[in-house]
């Protein structure tokens, strides 16, 4: 049951994947501001787990403008893109089946 086979992303993971698919790269705070379902406190825990699953990838950038601390910018990976497409297809099939 809990093998290594890929599973469909959860609701919040889907929101993040959707945002990243629309925009090429985003910061965590940008995602929080873009979606009202993501919270400041939990977004990085979510992103960290998604990175572990291979849905997103990140790179560190030096932000010179504000705090001066290194920030991570996130982008969707190939697996993330495939997971998003599969979930969209699954939802479309379910909707079609219900209709």
């Amino acid at each position: 049951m809990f093998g290594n086979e890929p599973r469909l992303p959860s609701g919040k993971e889907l929101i993040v994947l959707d945002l990243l698919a629309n925009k090429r790269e985003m910061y965590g705070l940008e995602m929080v501001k873009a979606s009202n379902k993501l919270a400041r406190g939990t977004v990085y825990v979510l992103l960290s787990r998604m990175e572990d699953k291979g849905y997103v990838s990140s790179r560190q950038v030096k932000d010179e403008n504000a705090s001066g601390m290194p920030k991570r910018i996130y982008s969707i990976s190939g697996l993330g893109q495939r997971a998003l497409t599969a979930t969209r297809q699954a939802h479309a099939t379910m909707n079609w089946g219900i209709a």
Partner: protein
Amino acid sequence: MMDRLLQLITLNKFNRVHRTVHLTVRFCYGLGTSLLLYSERLNLKAIVPNEVFRVLLITISSVLFSFTLWLGIEALKMSQRGSDKFIKPPGSRVLQIAQFCYSRKKYERIFLQTAADMREEYFEACSAGQIWKARWVHVRGVWSFYAAVLTDIPLSVVGLVVKLWIAAK
């Protein structure tokens, strides 16, 4: 960034000291003049026989004395306003705790990012002069840390249990 901060602190310190000295000098000058006028008022009838001039002089001295009092209060307020010592940016203490308690990967991916976001919003609010917004950002940022910890611990425990269960199978 650090140079700019130091420059701002030095500039702020200079402005504060300059303004305090300026207000104190004006206060002393005002107080001296007022006292002089009041001391003359005791024997004013002999010095200024004209009633109109006497009333005018008393009015001027009263206004000057009120202004002097106001200057004194301002100088007091200015001298009591904040110290010039360095203060740590918001989230420093929780970052230290997180660095001690968590792995480097989690610290960099979760807690450092939360602190970076908090400081970005905090400095933006400070530079816009929105002190209350900055305070609110600070409170919200610290709450975000606790929320991250509270979210991460159950997920980590469940993950560990699942891994153990798979390994035992």
